[in-house]
């Protein structure tokens, strides 16, 4: 069972929910942090990291002996990663999407490939070894999140419980993160901003044809707009988390939801089973 935790906007409590599911479970669980621009699941899970690996993507290398300076590769490249001014092309590795097009159009067979680092993956264990943590982190100044996310996803097992912490928003890194999950939880706040961004997120998961439910964080702090919307749209509200000042304080110090509101533990423990039953019924 792979549960992706996503949200239309940042700061709604996406990581809080993902961490709570992992920590409330009693079985082994994989926590996959795909929010590679700002991975902060580890602030709360505090894993012991046992391995760090670089994420390499292929970028072109020009054999200047063979290159005829024809410029075809630079004209072909849709990402402006090659520039030719009547010379063998300059390569801009951080712009390269590794599509392979330049080598296909090169008439002189002058292009080969080498690995270029764009980020790293760290593997760790938390909660006495029960929770496996895989975290992707994009290098500062890096722009290509999807390859890092793909690397994180390659560590997610097919069996057992996995929780995927997705980047916020509805842009392409989010799609990359939730693809292949069995179920999506959309975390929101009960405010007009929360509702507006939730609608975009719902549109996205519906477009992808994925089963999903909503989690309302600080549900007693705003209005009923989100609940009314879920009612109208026939969307399951999986859990409503109350606003507690104690929770905000605990969170600010790196504590989890289960530390701040201990009575939520049982509810979060049940979420994977509720989801499983829901999927089986369909």
């Amino acid at each position: 069972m792979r549960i992706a935790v996503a949200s239309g906007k940042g700061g709604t409590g996406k990581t809080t929910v993902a961490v709570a599911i992992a920590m409330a479970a009693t079985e082994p669980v994989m926590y996959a942090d795909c929010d590679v621009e700002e991975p902060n699941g580890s602030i709360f899970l505090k894993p012991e990291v046992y391995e760090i690996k670089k994420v390499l993507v292929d970028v072109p290398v020009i054999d200047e002996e063979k290159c005829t300076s024809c410029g075809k590769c630079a004209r072909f490249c849709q990402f402006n990663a090659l520039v030719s001014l009547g010379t063998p092309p300059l390569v801009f590795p951080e712009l390269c999407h590794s599509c392979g097009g330049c080598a296909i159009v090169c008439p002189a067979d002058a292009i080969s490939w080498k690995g270029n680092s764009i980020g790293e993956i760290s593997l760790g264990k938390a909660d006495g070894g029960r929770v496996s943590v895989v975290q992707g982190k994009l290098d500062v100044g890096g722009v290509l999140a999807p390859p890092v996310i793909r690397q994180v996803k390659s560590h997610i097992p097919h069996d057992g419980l996995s929780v995927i912490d997705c980047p916020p928003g509805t842009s392409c890194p989010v799609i990359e993160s939730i693809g292949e999950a069995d179920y999506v939880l959309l975390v929101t706040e009960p405010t007009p901003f929360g509702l507006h961004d939730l609608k975009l997120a719902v549109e996205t998961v519906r477009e992808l044809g994925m089963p999903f439910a909503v989690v309302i964080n600080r549900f007693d702090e705003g209005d009923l707009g989100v609940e009314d919307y879920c009612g109208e749209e026939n969307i399951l509200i999986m859990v409503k988390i109350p606003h507690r000042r104690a929770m905000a304080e605990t969170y600010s110090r790196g504590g989890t939801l289960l530390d701040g509101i201990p009575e939520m533990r049982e509810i979060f423990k049940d979420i994977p089973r509720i989801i499983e039953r829901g999927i089986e019924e369909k």
Partner: protein
Amino acid sequence: MKIAVPTSGKTLESQVDNRFGRASGFVVFNTEDGTFVYADNSQNLNAAQGAGTQASQNVAGTGAGVVIAPSYGPNAFRVLNSVGIKTFISAPGTVKENIDNYIAGNLSETDAANVEGHW
């Protein structure tokens, strides 16, 4: 010698644009005869990425030997540098004021990219 300056207008009186790669065009001034032409860069406004490298190619295509702009990303700088185009830092104001300042020796040359890449 030709001097290229990024601008959102098309004349010597236009303000210098604060971006090099995504400027809508360049005024290219010829110091020998005091004439200027406008080089369009608008296809780069919509480049998904790599605007800096593409704008640099456009500038190179105009035959300019000097660029005056507020800042240069590393990619733009690398392309300009590879073909020997000199890069000077502009001051806020019009294209003409900056060209006059350059001719008077009041602008400083940069020998490294002064902003991070940002696309």
